[in-house]
């Protein structure tokens, strides 16, 4: 931040890749644009009308020329497409080892929670060299989580989860902007991301910003989720014998068979929908008994519940993996 420049700061592993594509398209456009510009200027000078009754030679057109100047640009733009597509695919596929942060946008602030449970508002502290995955939603209207120095942006959409990921590469403080217009104080819905050395980050996690520590408990989200699971009486149907509602261990991240015969991936969005609108996609073999929790859970609580349900299936997988390891051993 501070002084102006003509180039944004580059602080993530994507930054140079996005810049490279920008420069490539920029150069193509420059060559092409200058070419057309100089041609037009050249013609404009060379073929200036000399007398009022001048009649120039008439040329109908030229088919090979038409084909040439259609096919060559087509080839060039397809190369741009391919490059952009590969990059986008990479930007949309977080690595498995990424740390999962949750972000909730609301008019007009960003609420962040670290995987360890630490919470922040309008700030995001992260360590260098660690892939970070953000799971994002909004409490009210659309927002968009934008970090120019990382070249990443993803909309925060009420009612669903979006994800974004990046790997910070350079220590420093960078802007967080809300990029989707969200009402009165849209331009004040800004914050900063603080990229730190891993040791400093561990230190920070321990001591933290005293000011935001009081926002709420700094427990891991799945721990709070486990408590909510009790308090909201989810346990009644989902943790007894599994006749009223499906057992949830090992469900997250796997395909679920629905009553309609379709299968669906049990991801954040599906679990969220099942809590807010339980009758939308009923699991095969169960009755539509569950009441809606619409209006009873905040976005934060939903994220905590989902984190808990996710942790149920991670322990499940772990156990299986351990099991296999034991067998092999």
């Amino acid at each position, binding site marked *: 931040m501070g002084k102006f420049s003509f180039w944004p700061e580059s602080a993530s592993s994507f930054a140079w890749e996005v810049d490279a594509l920008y420069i490539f398209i920029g150069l193509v456009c420059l060559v092409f644009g200058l070419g057309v510009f100089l041609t037009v200027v050249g013609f404009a000078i060379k073929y200036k009308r000399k007398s009022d009754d001048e009649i120039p030679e008439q040329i109908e057109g030229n088919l090979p020329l*038409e084909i040439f100047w259609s096919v060559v640009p087509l080839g060039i733009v397809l190369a741009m497409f391919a490059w952009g597509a590969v990059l986008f695919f990479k930007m949309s596929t977080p690595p498995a080892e990424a740390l999962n942060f949750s972000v909730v946008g609301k008019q007009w602030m960003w609420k962040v929670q670290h995987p360890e449970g630490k919470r922040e508002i309008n700030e995001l502290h992260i360590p260098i060299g660690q892939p970070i995955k953000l799971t994002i939603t909004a409490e009210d209207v659309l927002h968009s989580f934008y970090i120019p120095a990382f070249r990443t942006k993803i909309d925060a959409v009420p*009612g669903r989860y979006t994800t974004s990921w990046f790997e910070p590469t350079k220590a420093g403080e960078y802007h967080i902007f809300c990029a989707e217009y969200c009402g009165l104080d849209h331009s004040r819905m800004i914050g900063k991301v603080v990229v730190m050395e891993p040791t400093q980050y561990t230190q920070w996690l321990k001591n933290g910003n005293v000011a935001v520590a009081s926002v709420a408990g700094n427990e891991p989200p799945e721990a709070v989720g486990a408590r909510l699971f009790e308090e909201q009486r989810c346990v009644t149907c989902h943790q007894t014998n599994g006749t009223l509602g499906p057992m949830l261990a090992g469900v997250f991240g796997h395909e679920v068979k629905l009553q309609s015969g379709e299968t669906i991936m049990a991801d954040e969005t599906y679990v969220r929908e099942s809590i807010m609108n339980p009758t939308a996609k009923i699991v095969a073999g169960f009755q539509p008994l569950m009441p809606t929790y619409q209006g009873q859970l905040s976005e934060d609580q939903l994220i905590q519940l989902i984190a808990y349900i996710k942790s149920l299936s991670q322990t499940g997988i772990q156990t299986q993996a351990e099991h296999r390891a034991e067998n092999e051993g």
Partner: protein
Amino acid sequence: MAAVEVHDTPELQEPERRTYLNAGHTLSSWLLTVDHKRIGIMYLIAVTSFFLVGALFAALVRLELTTPAGDLLSADLYNKAFTMHGVVMVFFVLIPSVPATLGNFLIPIMIGARDVAFPRLNLFSWYLFMAGGLFALSAAVTGGVDTGWTFYTPYSSTYANGSVLLAGMGAFVAGFSSILTGLNFIVTIHTMRAPGMHWFRLPLFIWAHYATALIQVLGTPVIAITLLLMMLERGLHIGIFDPTLGGDPVLFQHLFWFYSHPAVYIMILPAMGVISEMIACFSRRRIFGYSFVAFSSLAIAIIGFFVWGHHLYVSSQSVYVGLVFSFITFLVAIPSAIKTFNWAATMYKGSISYDSPMIFVLGFMGLFLIGGLTGLFLAAVGLDVHLHDTYFVVAHFHYIMVGGAIMGFLGGLHFWWPKMTGRMYPELPAKIAAWLVFAGFNLTFFPQFLAGYIGMPRRYHEYPPEFQIFNVMSSGGAVVLGIGYLMPMIYLIWSIFYGKKASANPWTGKGLEWTIPSPPPTENFERTPIVMEEAYEYSHLEVKKVG
């Protein structure tokens, strides 16, 4: 072009020749007219008035942005100013600019008809347009709207205060005007062509308007329904777009851009038609690759319907959907490139004169080139993640929608002004205005590409200080641009009273409009013309006129 006897324009001999202008002098002779030419003039007055309103809001926005702090306007007023700027400029200036004014005036004449197919419907369209405009303006004076011209839900349908319903109604009603105008043009072009005016003898202005009319008829009903649903959700809380009511906010974006992306082509295609006419006339050349230019208009209209998802790359749309839309978006670049090359080739070995409309043509080509090429950055999906919703996008669409469309509109207005009014405007101020618009436009909007790449988001009332230099340049450029836009308003109006009388064909142009007197009589043609020549037959100049 046609085998009609070209009357030597009776300039001094017969001062009381009846024209469409002196056919009636009462207000009701205008307000109840079914003459397409008078309706075109009425649209011109209306669109120019809306342009002044839209420009006023733009001036407020640019003034506010000269400093990083939000010091001139409150955040609320700023948000309302950019919303009204967008609503007025998109729905009430850019979309009707060329088709409703020049299109209305010229389409029947260019195809050798006496009027459009449905003259009364044409008048009705004007009244719908005005009613829509009054709704929108009443939104501004009854508390304003702060949703942005995009009306994104659930902000517009649930959270926003202010006169969202009135503004929505404004766009909704004006939309019907656009649909009916498009319908009228399609039927007119199909059924009213003079004998011998077969499809491939049509001026490219007509092809461009035909393609535009298709988009208007096929696309506009979608935005009408979308805005209606948004208004119903706001008023009656039906759950279409708001997730707390069971709706889907991203659905709104899909429906909105299904129209609003093609709407960009509603703005730019007619301007391209204008450019084709002028470049042919001032180069005295048939347009190079006539059929390629004609079909590229249709290609743009058709492909343009399948690119809307490039507005939703980061909206939670699936990765694969994003890739498909990126691919199609790159395809739509090709017909635009074809047009540009063919225009340039038309100048090759031409006989080029630099009357002021031709300066607007060159300006258009420069601005459209930059606008079109910067679209490639945004089409590349991995790069757009960074650029989406920044000033890079603001700069890009202004280059196309304002740089391109308004440059074409102004050029066309100068080109056909002698035909419409019977008067010549002063040439020197017109040339100065054309250069000022070109220079001012680049000064205003080029810095915004730079601000966008370093990350300045759109619709920001306040911004971090490192963006200030670009905003100061932008606001400075806007002053030059403003002068460039104001000048034509002054000297064109001046010319109506004091301008030199125009001959029937001051530019030695081809095309039926130059075969009839300036200004035309109410019935356009005394006898239906019979067309014997191709379009742009500049191999001979049968009408030689000096002055």
